[in-house]
């Protein structure tokens, strides 16, 4: 039986730009095995918090600490629309970049890498599309390829930025089922930013809400209520 411990701990941190705080005294922790939703209205500071957690911006105050086991095993799935379609990459190539990101530059490709890439694509049901141009896949398919790219690094903590935005209901359901399976069957810890609340209700174990410059933990059941401050 594995013990529950914090994979990510944010303590009294303030995040912002050019010295001006957008979020202040943020404290939160993600425990091993959690499936956490990070919600909030557009412009509430979700992206700022995510950048702070990912250490893409330095906290103006406080600390962001990862458990040592997460270092080198942090999976990140960006918003797919941020990735420029001009790059001539197949789904396979995109997943391979996950391996590239987790290795020193001088490391040679191996047959083991090839198998790991194939397996990651199988895990997200995208193996039949491995030679398709990434830019020509549907929104939901691209999202699953990006999840495979994160999976290939064997992440302890998977962080996703709005993985279901702009996809149809069927694709959204596929992505959420996939994430639920990763969490339940593979005990993967997941932090997911989203503003699609309803489909998350049955799946999340914890919800963090960003509202008016603060981050608070709210009960999962409240996702169904239309009384959330920004709904």
């Amino acid at each position, binding site marked *: 039986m594995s013990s529950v411990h914090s994979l990510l701990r944010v303590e009294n941190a303030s995040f912002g730009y050019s010295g001006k705080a957008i979020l202040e005294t943020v404290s939160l922790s993600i425990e091993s095995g959690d499936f956490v939703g990070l919600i909030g209205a557009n412009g509430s500071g979700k992206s700022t918090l995510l950048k702070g957690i*990912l*250490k*893409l911006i330095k906290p103006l105050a406080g600390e962001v600490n990862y458990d040592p086991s997460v*270092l*080198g095993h*942090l999976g*990140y799935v*960006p918003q797919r629309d*941020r*990735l*420029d379609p*001009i*790059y*001539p*990459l*197949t789904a396979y*190539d995109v997943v391979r*970049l996950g391996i*590239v*990101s*987790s290795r020193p*530059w*001088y490391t040679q490709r191996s047959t083991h890498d090839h198998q790991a890439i194939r397996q990651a694509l199988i895990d997200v049901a995208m193996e039949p599309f491995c030679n398709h*141009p990434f830019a020509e896949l549907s929104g939901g398919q691209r999202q699953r390829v990006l999840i495979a*790219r994160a999976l290939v*690094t064997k992440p302890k903590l998977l962080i996703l930025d709005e993985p279901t935005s702009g996809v149809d209901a069927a694709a959204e359901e596929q992505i959420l089922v996939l994430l639920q399976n990763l969490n339940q069957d593979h005990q993967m810890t997941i932090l997911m930013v989203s503003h699609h609340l309803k489909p998350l209700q049955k799946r999340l174990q914890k919800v963090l809400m960003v509202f008016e410059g603060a981050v608070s933990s709210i009960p999962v059941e409240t996702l169904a209520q239309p009384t959330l401050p920004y709904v």
Partner: protein
Amino acid sequence: MSEFLEIFKPTFLLHNALWGSIAVGFFCPLIGVYFLLRRMVLVGLTLPQISAAGISFAFFLEGLGFSWSLHPGEAQDRFLALAGSLVFTLASIGILAYLERSGEGTTDSRLGATYATAFAAAFLLVIANPTGKIEVLNMLQGEIVSVTSHDLHILLGVYAALTLLIWLLKDQLLLVSFDREAAQVMGKKVVVWDLWLYGIIAIAISMSVLIVGPMLTFAFLIIPPLAARRFCQRMSSFFVLSCAIGGLSGFLGFYCSYLWDLPLAPTDIAVASAFLMGAVVVKLILNCRGRLLAPLA
């Protein structure tokens, strides 16, 4: 046909110029691919012009009496031109990258102003040169016709080294170009990889501008990858096809220039542009054919 065979003979007077033209045409698209993918085509226009201004500045300093360690002569002129070009290109990349990060103004306006300033500086510094070394103007147009065997060997050696470097670093350069944030999250030092890429770009542009001038360097950086991108679904094929189109443009441009006594740079650019237009037409035909056949499939 005899002219065609003649240019391949080692005794051909412009033998070095031919291989120089092909080499620049073949190599520039290799880094031009990154200009296109990173959507920094204007940087590709500006840097060669800055490189030309660097050449003028180096000779201007020499005219003011700054002495150089090498023996006077053509070799020193080449060294001087390369040093000025390299210093200006590297310094400009550093300054432009700093301004980009600090968010000062817009990228387009910065590059537009820099291009115009570099263009003016390149010529005014030659005019203001106290020794009246007007032949520097020829250098600013590229001196491919007067390329010696020694110059050609240096050019090929540097290009080969840079090609090897790009091949070794291609995965890392692709990662930080395609998904910068993910690379940072995974602990990649994206600024260090940017510096590697910019260093390669600066050396490549400095060498190329000396041989073929700023405008042809820009054309070879951008046009072949633009033509190739339409047909490639993998990075490897994108690199190979871009270089092939560039090398072929360099060769055919040289041949047409020799055959019809045309200036080399505009002829090379015209041939590369013809490849681009051909690529657009072929892609249109393929798309139409695909749409027509789709209902039958």
